[in-house]
């Protein structure tokens, strides 16, 4: 029991420290005292004498970006945790049913037709939802098979199909103008996060989180074979549909504003499970804390290491994999 509490405390502490650090660093030099006085003036509603750029950097650029990293990291980790429990497989990522590929297709289509950011995000969001909807609709019509296997196979097939359409679009795209834009979107980035993006993504992620939190005990039963879970009183089909919808909503919202950032949804639930075990009610909050902290740390590096931006997906893999191996070596419990 105590080791579990320690994990929460440490994770929460790390998160707070990272958030403070993230606000304090950046390419545009802003001193800690400036940040403090700015935030103080915002809270008390009084005027401040700081240069306009400082306010822009902290409130319009860095602030939303830091918060977005937290939201996206937590959302991806939560979705990954739900999927790993539901598919009884610790090697599952939120993209197993194709939400990222669907979102990518939506975004690539929008870029192909030279649309603005808002349309690109909208297409990405609906693309992600539509892809999973399609997979779920087809998968649940395949009778006579283990329902999970049907879903996974359909997800792989549809994901490959959508991936090939993306490849075709990349091929047809104007190599000077659209192709670089497509490539950069697929690499993922939080560089362009605006307060408006946060205002859209956060409520959607919360909407997806709510059912997961409310049903956290029943989620545990999804880890049992279908027969057993049903015999214990759970309508597995309804529960799965609801959780898939919730996890997809969270992931689609995250991918729409940040592009595709891999590894968070796969590694973080793992790490959290190694620390506190598989009980969903204990696992979910820790996974979200760790996911938020991890992505925030990575994104802070992405925007401060060099003049140019580094794609976060590269760093999540570079940092995440050795970190995870270390954790796995240390842990006494299995997953």
């Amino acid at each position, binding site marked *: 029991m105590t080791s579990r509490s320690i994990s929460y405390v440490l994770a929460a502490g790390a998160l707070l420290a990272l958030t403070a650090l993230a606000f304090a660093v*950046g*390419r*545009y*030099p802003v001193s800690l005292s400036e940040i403090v006085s700015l935030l103080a003036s915002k809270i008390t509603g009084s005027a401040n004498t700081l240069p*306009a*750029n400082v306010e*822009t*950097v902290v409130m*319009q*650029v*860095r602030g939303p970006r830091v918060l977005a990293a937290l939201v996206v990291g937590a959302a991806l980790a939560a979705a990954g945790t739900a999927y790993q429990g539901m598919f009884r497989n610790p090697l599952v990522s939120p993209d197993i049913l194709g939400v990222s590929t669907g979102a990518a297709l939506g975004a690539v289509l929008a*870029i192909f037709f*030279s*649309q*603005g*950011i808002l349309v*690109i995000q909208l297409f990405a969001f609906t693309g992600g939802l539509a892809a999973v909807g399609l997979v779920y609709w087809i998968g649940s019509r395949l009778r006579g098979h283990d329902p999970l296997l049907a879903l996974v196979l359909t997800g792989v097939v549809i994901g490959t199909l959508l991936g090939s359409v993306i490849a075709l679009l990349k*091929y*047809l795209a*104007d*190599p*000077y*103008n659209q*192709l*670089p*834009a497509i490539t*950069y979107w697929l690499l993922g*980035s939080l*560089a*362009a996060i*605006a307060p408006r993006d946060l205002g859209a993504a956060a409520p959607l992620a919360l909407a997806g989180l709510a059912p997961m939190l409310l049903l956290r005990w029943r989620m545990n039963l999804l880890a049992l074979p279908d027969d057993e879970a049903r015999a214990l009183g759970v309508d597995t089909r309804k529960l799965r549909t609801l959780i898939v919808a919730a996890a997809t909503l969270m992931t689609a919202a995250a991918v729409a504003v940040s592009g595709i950032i891999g590894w968070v949804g796969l590694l973080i639930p793992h790490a959290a499970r190694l620390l506190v075990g598989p009980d969903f009610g204990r696992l979910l909050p820790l996974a979200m804390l760790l996911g938020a902290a991890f992505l925030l740390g990575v994104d802070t590096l992405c*925007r401060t290491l060099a*003049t*140019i*931006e580094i794609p976060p997906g590269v760093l999540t893999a570079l940092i995440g994999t050795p970190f995870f191996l270390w954790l796995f070596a240390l842990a006494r419990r299995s997953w």
Partner: protein
Amino acid sequence: MSRFFVLTLLTFLGKACFAQSAVVDASGREIRPPAKVERVYAAGPPASLLVFAIAPDKLTGWTRAMRPNEAEFFPERYANLPELGRLTGRGNTANVEVVLNAKTDLIVDVGSTGPTLASLASQVQEQTRIPYGLFDGRIESTPAALRALGRLMGNTAEAEKLAAWYENELAQVKQRVARASVHPSVYYGRSASGLQTGGKGSINVEALEVLGARNAAAEARAGLVTVSFEQVLLWNPEVILTTDPNFWKSAWTDPRWRAVSAVEQKRVYLSPHLPFGWFDFPPGANRLLGLWWAGKLLYPQTFDVDLRARVTEFHRLFYHREPTAAQLDALLGEPGVLPK
């Protein structure tokens, strides 16, 4: 003895008749075109532009079919040339059989001339037995490329005329730049977010470098890069140029961009893009127009030029059709192209 002499003479003469003299292209490869070059396949848009300018009847087709808003700038019989696809390094869409089918005498490409593309060109040349010449696509190398291309195609006179004119234009640009006392810092923003830009030496900002402008993103590495808002705010450019109309629109309303000096000073401009873009892409001779346009925006005192006249002249020489007044109005009147 005399028979031997006559035979040798005849052989030399024969060789001279059936082969053109070899031309060394920009990648250092020797190109031997046939005696008469009637049909030239241009492997990418910058090449299409030059071949079309020199001898439009010899161009076998465009790499991409013209859209109606592009076609209206060209004489109709040329606008409808077939679509043959690209054979250039960045993403080929051409079918080599199609190229052969078009009875090509010569393949040319204008752009980068490094070893990778040179080996690609040699490979295609071996495959098809059609001479494949590469030429340097940099703005300042355009006159040389025109001359070399003219020699290869057997149109030295037309090419010389264009090359001399282009040289003169470049010299005029340089003179005006030299007279300018204030060189503002310029940020070139691409993509809908405006956060993609070109670092020092990147082909995307070549026009800026010819203009002696201070690229705000000069400290970034060469090539296309993404930067963060904070970085742009730190650079605080005085002028922003872009090729993306979505970004141009959002720069005025987005509170983050409003903090940038260029937006405050209302010096955010959108490059025209018809029929070939004026700035950045395609990276060909079309960027001369971008030099005049950006020069006027960056150095308004020294670049007191009649942009319409310059555009008309360029179109007449390179697109073989003068734009109508209405077309000029549309080109220059699009929101963001010129200061109000």
